[in-house]
Each structure stands twice: as C-alpha cells, then as structure tokens.
C-alpha cells in the first residue's frame, strides 16, 4: 500500500488556512482547494462508479456542497477525507436520480500507446470488472474499501470520516476484499 498522496507541500498553506481564507472571502483559496483535491476526489468517484461523462459535474457538486457545509467541518479527519465522504453522498444522489450504471471506458484503455495492446485490453477488462464489483458492494464496504485500498487511508481516519469505529471499518474492509476476490477469480 503506497502512502496517501501528499496533501500539501511544506511551502503551501494548509487546508485549514485555505478554508479560513475562503470563509474570509478569498475566492482563490477555494480554487486552490479544488486544484489540490480534485484529482483524488475524481479517482475516488470514478472508482465508486461515477460515469466518466458525469465526473466533472459530480466533482463540482461535491466541492460546492463541501464549501456550503465547511462551517460544520471540525477537523475530525483530514479535509480530503471529509471531501471524499461528501463525494460518496453526491454520487449516491446522482445514482438515485439517473438510475444508470457505470460505463467502463474500455476503448480509452486501448488508445494508450505503451505496452502490449492485448495485455492492456485484458488489464482494462479486469479493472472494469473490479469497478463493476465495487459498485455492487454495500455502500459502507465500498467506501471503506476505496478509502483504504485506493486512497491509502488508515482505519482511524476512515472511521472518523464515516462516523464508525476503526474495528467496524476493518470488518467492512475485510468483507469487501473477500467478496471482490471471489468475484475476480
């Protein structure tokens, strides 16, 4: 498991400083928070089943909701982790509205120029299956799995963000992994 992506370089203002600046009316602070976390958020959302065509919209909506509710953010977890959980809610609402499944962009995998085209196609197919199986997981299992396996977060952080205990998060994670392994055999 690689370490989680660095949230900010040493010379950059912290997330907390940017949040405070935005609350004080600095629009560029909000833009900087988006630049800093949009990619990780998009990866989480795409892994959780957001259709690529809608990814930008879902990312935007997540940030809007986060900025509206930022006064309720008490630092129980990192801003990024909190943002990802909001993204999970936005995605759930979007799925409820659209009632449509994830489209696996298999054609895009084939456009890649490096590696053996056949191997790339097989890898893309397996990845597509994993994506579909992740979507089938119960919501808590799915979010815990992605926060842990994809984002590299510790159970304490996951538990704080999802309002559960580290032990429960660990159990959700193990259930998810067992189920995914069975499906990918």
């Amino acid at each position, binding site marked *: *498991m*690689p370490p989680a992506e660095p949230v900010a370089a040493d010379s950059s203002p912290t997330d907390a400083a940017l949040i405070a600046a935005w609350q004080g009316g600095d*629009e*560029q602070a*909000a*833009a*900087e928070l*988006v*630049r800093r976390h*949009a*990619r*990780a958020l*998009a*990866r*989480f*959302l*795409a*892994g*959780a089943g*957001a259709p*690529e065509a809608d*990814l*930008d919209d879902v*990312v*935007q909506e997540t*940030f*809007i909701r986060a*900025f*509206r509710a930022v006064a309720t953010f008490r630092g129980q977890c990192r801003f990024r982790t909190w943002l990802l959980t909001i993204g999970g809610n936005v995605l759930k609402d979007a799925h409820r509205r659209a009632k449509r499944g994830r489209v696996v*962009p298999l054609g*895009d*995998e084939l456009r890649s120029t490096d590696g053996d085209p056949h191997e790339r196609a097989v890898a893309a197919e*397996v*990845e597509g299956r*994993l*994506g579909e199986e*992740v979507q089938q997981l119960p919501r808590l299992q799915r979010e815990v*799995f*992605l926060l*842990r*396996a*994809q984002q590299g977060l510790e159970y304490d952080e996951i538990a704080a963000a999802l309002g559960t205990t580290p032990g429960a998060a660990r159990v959700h*994670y*193990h259930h998810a*992994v*067992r189920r*995914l*392994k069975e499906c*990918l055999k």
Partner: protein
Amino acid sequence: MKDDATFHDAELQDLAQRLGTRAAERLDVERTAQAVVARLREEAGAPARPSVWSQPAWLKIAAALVVVVGAGVVAQGVWPAPPGVALPVETVDLSDMSAPQLRELLRSVEQADAPEPVSSQDVGLEDLSPAQLRALLASLEMET
C-alpha cells in the same frame, strides 16, 4: 497494511490503486476550479429568499392575531349556535305594567299562535300561557 491477513492478493491491490485513475487524469482540474468558484460566486450574489421566521417578532404576532380573529369570524358563520343555548332577547318587566296594559297584552297573546309553554323552573312572564297570565292578572286585580 501488513496486518491485513486477507489482503495478500497483489493483483487486487494493484487494481484498486488504479481504479478510476485514467478517468481522473482526464479531468481538467483548472477548469473545474474556475467552475466551482463561479458557482460559489453566483450563490453568494443571489438574493437570499426572505424567510417567514426571519421577520420581526411583531409581524409574526400580528399575523397570528389576524389568523385567530379570522378563524373566529369564519367559525361563527359556519356553525350556528347549538340547540338549548338561549339567544339574548329583549325582555319586558310585566310586573311594572298596569292592569289595563296587562289585559291588552293578554289579548294580543291570545290572538297570536303562542308556542307551547317551556317547562322550566326558571321562566319569565313572557313564557306563561294565556291561562296562566289570566290567573296572574286576576291575582293582581285582587291586590289592587
């Protein structure tokens, strides 16, 4: 992740880390940032809808009074007074009348289609039957 006994599958780990990566890489982060800022600016500039509960207290009290009074007026119009409840009537004190006046009154009562007497312990002279009034008149004449 060394403590994860079930997470030995390197393929699953690798796949999970790659999940959504390509789609995320195609996101135009700068465009997204500008779009979010624009939406936040729009929301901040939009006039806030005034809430009923944010009005001054006196206005709420006045509104409540209007509702209560209006409801009372409507209720009076919709529901008539229940049976048994006497409406206020203009009464005449017969005891102050002279004998000729009483006789005149008796005549007019006899001519009218008088209703059945009300059986009650507490009745006025206007509730007496012609026979009872006649008896009353006779007793008054005897007194005078």
